[in-house]
């Protein structure tokens, strides 16, 4: 992704398309859209170099509402389309907006493979733990036992944890944010764009129509501090309204401890988003409410070559080795003979 320094200064308004936004009033998607539109002008990337690709679902309407290039595709395939865009034009800043159904159910295969290829794209997975567009069936992130239109007796599917999946697929950048915690969301989005490689961001998003308050524990005034842990690189894992609770390792298992009584910060786990091995990030991705606070922020940010860079290198290398191909040369490949 190239950064054009001579770009005129744009504002969030310049990224608003002329399309009427059609999410339900009160949907968490509005807050995410607002943050994205706020972050885009700060990137110093010309509007025409930004491409939003999406699949199908409520979240996938996103590209229509951003004044840039956009591709609202078919269910689950956004990452595959984005792969073609990025491979064709590595200079473009490519975003994928997907949901828990689009990205983890029908499009699960593409998610795994796009992540492992480490294309320099930004993937925002809006997780509302429900199918919204099709009016309320359980999704791959719905909790076991969840009663929905398609599971009147409760879901018997064990849920996937999006960040664990991403880490398992060798993600180089993994983060989590909340739709309503907008400052934090904005900061995470900027980190995601700045990362060279596939940035995977799970955004907890409230579907106030079919799964209202699914994440209330992480946003409610009362519960928020105890149910959330803000990750900071190089800092100990501390949380709680009084910031007196921490996560410590007991053998291979994390446990919650209270600071004081002989327990100091030094006994706690320290966050290291740059750890070469994803073990810590994976463990953090397994911390779930109500047993644990749920971490937000950047879990993992490591460097690895991107697919498109390596492909460009191979093309350049082939040209250097064989010379730039010409049509005549193309036809003359192989055993050629002359008939007079």
């Amino acid at each position: 992704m190239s950064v054009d320094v001579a770009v005129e200064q744009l504002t969030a308004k310049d990224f608003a398309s002329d399309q009427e936004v059609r999410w339900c009033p009160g949907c968490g998607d509005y807050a995410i859209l607002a943050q994205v539109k706020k972050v885009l002008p700060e990137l110093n990337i010309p509007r025409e170099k930004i491409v939003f690709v999406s699949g199908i679902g409520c979240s996938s309407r996103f590209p229509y509402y951003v004044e840039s290039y956009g591709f609202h595709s078919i269910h689950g395939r956004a990452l595959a389309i984005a792969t073609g865009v990025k491979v064709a034009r590595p200079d473009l800043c490519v975003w994928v907006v997907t949901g828990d159904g689009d990205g983890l159910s029908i499009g699960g295969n593409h998610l795994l493979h796009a992540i492992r290829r480490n294309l320099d794209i930004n993937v925002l997975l809006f997780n509302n733990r429900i199918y919204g567009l099709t009016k309320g069936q359980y999704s791959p992130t719905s909790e076991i036992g969840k009663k929905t239109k398609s599971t009147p007796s409760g879901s018997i599917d064990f849920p996937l944890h999006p960040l664990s999946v991403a880490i398992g697929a060798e993600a180089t950048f993994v983060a989590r944010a909340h739709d309503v915690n907008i400052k934090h969301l904005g900061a995470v989005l900027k980190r995601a764009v700045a990362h060279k490689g596939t940035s995977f961001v799970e955004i907890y998003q409230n579907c106030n129509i079919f799964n209202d308050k699914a994440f209330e524990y992480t946003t409610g005034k009362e519960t928020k501090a105890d149910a959330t842990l803000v990750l900071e690189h190089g800092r100990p894992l501390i949380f709680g309204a009084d910031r007196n609770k921490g996560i410590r390792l007991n053998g291979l298992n994390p446990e919650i401890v209270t600071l004081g009584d002989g327990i100091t910060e030094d006994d706690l786990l320290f966050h290291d988003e740059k750890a070469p091995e994803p073990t810590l990030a994976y463990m953090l991705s397994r911390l779930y409410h109500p047993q644990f606070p749920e971490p937000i922020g950047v879990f993992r940010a490591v460097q690895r070559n991107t697919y498109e860079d390596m492909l460009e290198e191979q093309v350049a290398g082939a040209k250097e080795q064989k010379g730039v191909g010409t049509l005549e040369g193309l036809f003359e490949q192989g055993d050629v003979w002359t008939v007079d």
Partner: protein
Amino acid sequence: MDGSETGIGTGTATSTGGKTREVSTRRLDHVVIRFAGDSGDGMQLAGTQLTNTSAAFGNDVSTLPDFPAEIRAPAGTLAGVSGFQLNFSERLVHTPGDGCDVLVAMNPAALKANIADLTEDGTVIVNTDAFSAKNLEKAGYESNPLEDGSIASHALFKVQIDKLCSEAAKDTGLGNKALLRTRNFFALGLVYWLYDRPMVTTEKWIETKFAKVRAVADANLKALHSGYYYGETTEVFQTRYQVNRAEIPPGRYRKLTGNEAVAMGMVAAARLANKTLFYGTYPITPASDILHELSKQAHFDVKTFQAEDEIAAVASTLGASFAGELAATGTSGPGIALKGEAMGLAVMTELPVVIVNVQRGGPSTGLPTKTEQADLLQAMFGRNGECPMPVLAASTPGDCFDMTIEAFRIATRYMTPVILLSDGYLANGAAPWMLPKLSDLPDLSVQHPQANGREFLPYERNEFGARPWAVPGTRGLEHRIGGLEKAAGSGNVSYDPDNHERMIKLRAAKVAGIANDIPPIEIYGDQDADLLLLGWGSTYGAIISAVDDVRSKGKKVASAHVKYLNPFPKNLGEVVQSFKRVVIPEMNMGQLLPMIRSTYLVDAIGFNKVQGKPFHIKEVVAKIEELLEG
């Protein structure tokens, strides 16, 4: 075209080591020879060498490999037999031949799997060393066919190929196992003597291929020469055959399979469009060679992407097309089934992509290594909604090159996905291909719009009904596309009922309008005949050859070949209506047939074969004769 002798030559003297013997030489107008053996016997290589030698000598050639269905079937079993058939001729040939005149069988299984295709007076050369009791049993023979008289109608030549190979190159220091690997060259050398072919092409090939392993090069050369001298010295063979040069238009030639031709066509199209090529695909038989060929062409700015599945393959292709590259995907029928939804998205977003279907036997996994034409209706109608797409079909391996370029011309001019149909027979079959003149190739240059101060309408249409191909990175043309119905002009999402019908009609009219931009169908043979054979795809060679054959007997018949299946050429209706009878040979249960009957209300009849094998010329001849008499 039954391998008839066109002349008998005078006796020639042949000598080695002071000995001379009389060998007669016969002239043939063509020979069909099949090499058959275990997968590990190098039969494809022997066949390819004879092909290259014959082509360089000046014959016209046509070839078809017959790959075993199982990759690693146990040695000596029927499932593991690999074959290669070659037709070399002093006339122009259009098929690899019906049956074969000569069968080289390296073991009992190879004999058993192929003997039925040998002409009645044909020649069999067998490696007797492989006819052990164990191998006979593996092939399912109860008694030895070389001794029980069951193949007595053929001229049988028994050669101890294993033993002769071991002897020939024992001073190379290689072990016996390695020496036995040269037996394909021994058989080839013998065939070279029998058909009076120069060995130099193969000698050069061996030298280059095994330049780094001298002993192996020597062993193979010795085997080749021993085979040749075996024919010359021993008294086993009393006759040699000559197939003279064909009258081939002068020019530079190379041999090309259909898959190679598709790959080359794609690279050429990208160069002609001044664009880079993106090929997104997932490995599948028999289309994978297109990927293999293209992945060698990175120095032509070719980017190949082996996706995680068929859907990602086509979806990435759409992404690359949206981003402004020349983009294509290739697969076989099962892959098309998976790509269907994304192909609909390509129709809706009106993006230029080329989708190649190298058809194979279906349904489901079917017969992966065998050929069939049963995906035509899938190409026409296999998507949800009103989803018209141009459909082209190549008719010969070389035609795959032209039709690939044509597919891109239509895709980019009309902003539409285009399906190109090939099949396993074209994909693997090879024929000489005259290198095209650059000046004969079309200009595929594309104009991408730039902002001009006016409001940009992503679904505004030009004289071809095509919308503008505005690519990301173009300032002022930011826009959104997608799979939801589009408002005419603006391209905004629209649920308006009248707009939906209008857009359906606009998309259909755009595809139908391509009929104004393609060549009319031509009639081959007798314009005033009562009977027309109407074909499409790889049946071309068999149909043309059959028409020639029937006409050479003084009867009247015509044929026409449909290369554009959607839309049809404008004059096709007139053509089919001008014949009393129309018969449509297809390697399916009748798919062009209902299209022709319903489009033109003609009482065409089908002639169908669905055995995973191409039509034999004689089958088509028999059908024509039956219809002419009936």
